[in-house]
């Protein structure tokens, strides 16, 4: 398993996603590719952050922030 997928999976294993967002194993991605397809704002945001940090060229903090906020604003609305 790629390091980025491993990291994403670790984050997805956090109980908060189950307890607060009611997500189950099926709705949680196993890889960046799967995560990028998610419709769940928090999952998509986390996947984007992991991708931005792990994949080269590394996305700058400002770009990543804009990217994440755009996703969230869009999905939440």
């Amino acid at each position, binding site marked *: 398993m790629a*390091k980025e997928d491993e*990291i994403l999976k670790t984050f997805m294993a956090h109980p*908060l996603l189950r307890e607060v967002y009611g997500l189950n194993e099926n709705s949680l991605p196993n890889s960046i590719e799967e995560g990028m397809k998610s419709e769940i704002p*928090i999952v998509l945001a986390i996947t984007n*952050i992991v991708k931005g940090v792990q994949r080269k060229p590394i996305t700058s903090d400002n770009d990543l*922030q804009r990217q994440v*906020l755009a996703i*969230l*604003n869009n999905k*939440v609305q």
Partner: protein
Amino acid sequence: MIIKELIISNYQCYYDDKKFEFTRGSNIILGKNGGGKTKFYEAIEWLFSSNNRDIDELISKKKLNLASPNDPFKVGVEITFEQGEILNTVKKYFTVQKKTDKNFTTTNVVYEGIREYENGERDTMDGAALLKDIFPAKNKLYCMFKGESDLNILKNNDALVNLINLYSKVKHFGPYAEKGRVFREYADKAIEEAAKKDKKIEKRYKELDFEINNLQGKLNDKQIFLQTKYKEKRTLEENIQGVEKHLDNAEAVETIKTRIKDIDEKKKRLENSIDENYTTALFDKNWFLIYFENIQKEFSDKVVALSNERRKQQREFDREVGIKEGEKRATVALFRNVVPLPNDIPSRAIMEEMLSDEICKVCNREAKIGSDPYNFMLQRLNEYILTQKPVLEEEEEGDKIELFKNNYTSRLVNLEAAIDNDLIKVRSIYQTIKDQLEFNQERKNEIDELDRKKDKEIEDLENIIGSSELGQDSLAHTFKNSKGWQRDLTAVNIKIEEYEKSVSEMRKELSPKKDEKEALDSKSVSTYLTQTRKILRDIETIFEETKENKYDEFVKQLQKTANDYLKKINVGSFTGYIEIERRVFNKEQIVEVNLMQDGEIFYHPNTSLQTSMHLAILFAISEMTKIEREECYPLIFDAPTSSFDPIKRKHFFEVLGDCNEQTILLTKDFTDRSENTPGLLYSEEFVNIKRNKAILIRLEEPFDDEILSTINTQVINL
């Protein structure tokens, strides 16, 4: 990665080229003190360091001595790392050109690097850059250990984080927590700015903002104070435990010192109470009168005798005077009414004639000697003669005539009586002197007894000090410090309780204010903004907690593995257990490694136990990180087990070979040759020591240990 080969050339005690070939697993280099172990370690340190000063000191004196002028030679270290199928060789050296016996020149230090591939192709590279690439400088802290003190790799707070960042996958989670925080702060700010635009809540919002910031600031300050107090408490507990083993001795010393002081004071009082100024007392207190009573007796007898005599004489005198008076009165009675004849009738001559003739020629009667008529005539003659004598004034006064004109005798009698009265005092002098002498002697006896007690106390004191690791002054300080630390600890505990209460109250106070602010946010700001912030807050929580969990897992595993190693090294002996505590404060990772005993920190284990604890942690780190890291680095130890006994040493070497891909260990152990096995170059104990490779280094004989130019270390593969 392992070190495959090391060549030390003309470097200090290593004359010419000395090659060390190493293998995977444990490589043990045996060498007596002064044989070249430390120089071996320093040669590797020099290779890794960028310090190129004082290189003249590095030149082998033997080489310098034997080299011909104008025949240059190299001084340096060459190391070959095996990385999979690739061999990386780095040389660091300088060239020496001898001019005369006392003069030589050196070139600059140069690095050379060669990378040799599996197919035999070789690339020449910048040696310094190659070294940096294959063995980063910060690795040295976790790979090279000189002596036992270097082994405590977790002594600094940042050591664990550095280790994790160097070797563990946990490091990958670090940046996310930071990003999560930045994103959430951005969302907070966006909401705050939007909320402030709502005029209806503006005032209350600002108030809340101010109150929350103010309270949060105070809370942060209090938490910092609290952390400081926790740290203070630990230091105090450590200090107290550190002196605990000396405390009994320190208290005993203090008690004895107090007793000695009491003895000295008592002795001083006794000495002051002794008055032996007898000469002064002889006069000031009239002690010289001690035998005066005999003199007084003699004096008294004489006075009494004198007084008796005087009275006797007085009585005689008084009687005589009385008789005369009587006679006068009788004569007057005899011739009553008759006028007596004058005294001179008959005349003196007639009277003398009649007496001579024994005839009274007045009445013409015989007057024989002794007869009344004769005596009558004689009396008349005497009376006449007496009347013819000159008469003294006093006699003339009649009654005023006294036998003793002055009353000296009475005065003597009075004096004698007065002295006699004072004899009581004189008689008490003997007792006074006796009492004084006895008193002084008793005090002297008491002083002797105190001296004996003091000698005994001093002996006890010396015994305690002799059996203690600390001297008398240190024990005294220990006692004082300990008392002070105990007081400080009580004060710190009170402060901690106070701060904890404050922190708890502040949090309680802060919570409803934050809730109110959040409620205002929800009222005045678009839902999507608050939703976004909520998600970003949750992302921050996920990132932060995941990172923390990963660190905690690592620490937990490290603790477990370390304890496994601790048991392996200390088979059959008491060890306690290692506890690695990690906490985050003010974004700073704080790591505390403690040896625990019965649930309490064992602050001052002996060196051997301490070393085994550090080695256990080191081996655990090595084992854990070799699973996770991409590269494995050799561990190099110089004399890490000086405090170990043979049993512990054996267990240590059993562990050593398995804990890392490669270890190189220098030790003076096992160098005593056995008499039973003369063929062996090492002790019999080493036969049973687990190792993958053993090398002996020793000085080539003959040599003079005071002449460096005779020194050359030999390298013998065992």
